[in-house]
């Protein structure tokens, strides 16, 4: 691997102005949140961007080949370009903070972070994205960091010459399998559905690696085994007729995502899978509260869609704020 030196764009220091009432608070710093922030700054809204990190899920994406303007770019490079653009504007940033609770009194939204910081704003855009969904099978939780991984680019190097399983049938599972194909000795690709949901271009790439990759469509995971270290797993066909033991040392779980909406659960309407319900103008069930990107019920989760939704949410929020005055 070629040695490189990544210098992430600097983040603005803590705002530290807890008494200030912001026009707009943006929760989340992925493509939706950062785009929303740039649009807000251009509308000269007094803006707070509050997020665990800048870049969100894209930081975990090795290659991006469908964000217009770039035929090919690494996920983190694309996010550095986003950060650079955010940095042009005087936006208060609270990076490294997770929101614990969002509430609303008569006039303002109140944001409480896990470290106890409080902020108030006239309007809020939730763009807090999604995180990896666990399988919820026996052994999974116990073996996180001991063979169970949700980040293939982070942990793939530990499985050199080893047998591993990738769980899932979508793009992220196939991308994980591609990361691992160069490293592991054998890969089992296991999914509950009988056909793959990944883009055909990714499926074709993996099918070229047939010598290394064994496919188990229509299988579920019964148990991940091992005490202090992963030692194998048992899978079962979806008709429950066959079970099989695989002596893998690593399991990469890529079965999709859950929305980061818990902090707003008591305030706003969520759909069955926990996404914040929005209309096509990013309105939620609460006036002044908007949502954008993967955390919202917008159909299709893509970087380019999230960015577009973030822009739209700010423009609609701006109209709302104008009417407040």
């Amino acid at each position, binding site marked *: 691997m070629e040695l490189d030196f990544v210098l*992430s764009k600097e983040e603005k220091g803590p705002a530290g102005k807890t008494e200030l009432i912001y026009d707009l608070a943006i929760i989340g710093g992925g493509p939706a949140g950062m785009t929303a922030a740039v649009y807000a700054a251009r509308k000269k809204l007094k803006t707070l961007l509050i997020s665990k990190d800048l870049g969100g899920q894209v930081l975990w994406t090795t290659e991006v080949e469908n964000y217009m303007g770039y035929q090919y770019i690494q996920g983190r490079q694309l996010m550095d370009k986003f950060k650079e653009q955010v940095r042009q504007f005087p936006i208060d940033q609270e990076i490294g903070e997770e929101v614990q609770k969002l509430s609303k009194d008569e006039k303002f939204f109140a944001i409480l972070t896990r*470290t106890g910081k409080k902020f108030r704003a006239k309007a809020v855009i939730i763009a807090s994205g999604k995180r990896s969904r666990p399988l919820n099978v026996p052994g999974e939780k116990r073996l996180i960091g001991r063979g169970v991984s949700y980040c293939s680019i982070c942990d793939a190097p530990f499985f050199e010459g080893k047998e591993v399983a990738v769980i899932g049938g979508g793009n992220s599972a196939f991308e994980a399998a591609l990361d691992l194909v160069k490293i592991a000795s054998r890969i089992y690709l296991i999914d509950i559905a009988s056909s793959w949901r990944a883009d055909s271009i990714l499926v074709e790439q993996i099918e070229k690696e047939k010598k290394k990759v064994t496919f188990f469509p229509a299988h579920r995971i019964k148990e991940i085994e091992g005490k202090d270290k992963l030692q194998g797993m048992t899978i079962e066909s979806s008709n429950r007729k066959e079970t099989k033991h695989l002596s893998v040392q690593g399991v990469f779980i890529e079965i999709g995502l859950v929305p980061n909406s818990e902090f707003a659960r008591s305030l706003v309407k969520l759909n069955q899978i926990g996404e914040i319900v929005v209309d096509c103008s990013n309105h939620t069930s609460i006036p002044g509260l908007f949502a954008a990107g993967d955390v919202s019920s917008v159909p299709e989760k893509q970087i380019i869609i999230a960015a577009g939704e973030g822009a739209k949410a700010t423009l609609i929020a701006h109209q709302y704020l104008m009417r407040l005055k």
Partner: protein
Amino acid sequence: MALLKDEVQNEVKERFKKLSGSLRLVNFTQKLECHHCEDTRRLTEEIASLSPKISAKVYNFAIDKEKAQQYKIDKIPAIVVEAEKDYGIRFFGIPGGYEFNSLISSIIDVSRGAADLSPESKDKISKITKPLHIQVFVTLTCPYCPAAVQMAHKLALESEYITSDMIESAEFPHLTNKYQVMGVPKIVINEKFGFEGALPESAFLDEIMKASK
């Protein structure tokens, strides 16, 4: 050819304008049988050339044994980031990829001689009176690892009882075996207690406090 591309050099120079006190990078290396030693030495020297406030000192691990002992260096490549005082901040293996951020962040913190931790955290840290050795295992492709390394190094800067090592997993397979590292960031405290994942400041410190008891 320089290891650091022009654009990265310029960005680092820009960041180094903020350096207040002078500091020193101490590199332990050797010529043979060390995969990234040569690159780590070059990186140390290139970084030092980007600010008049930074000096670099290179020791040969095999020859300068006294110095290695003084700095408690037991493996290479190693970089110590120190000012007039050695705060116990170490990078073992090359801080490339995402970990380059950790190196630059530690340089800025050490130059300031203070870590930007919350008053509550500083209060908790002041109650630590026993030596704590934190090892943070990383891979260079892990986007969440620098947060853990930077947090551990800030604790080392804040407390004279805490020392903190970044350990690049690929360089030290015997250590990843010993501590059963199969996912990163993995934090090992005093050789025995450990946890996985980058945690926010207060939660990270809570784990450290548990181990200090």
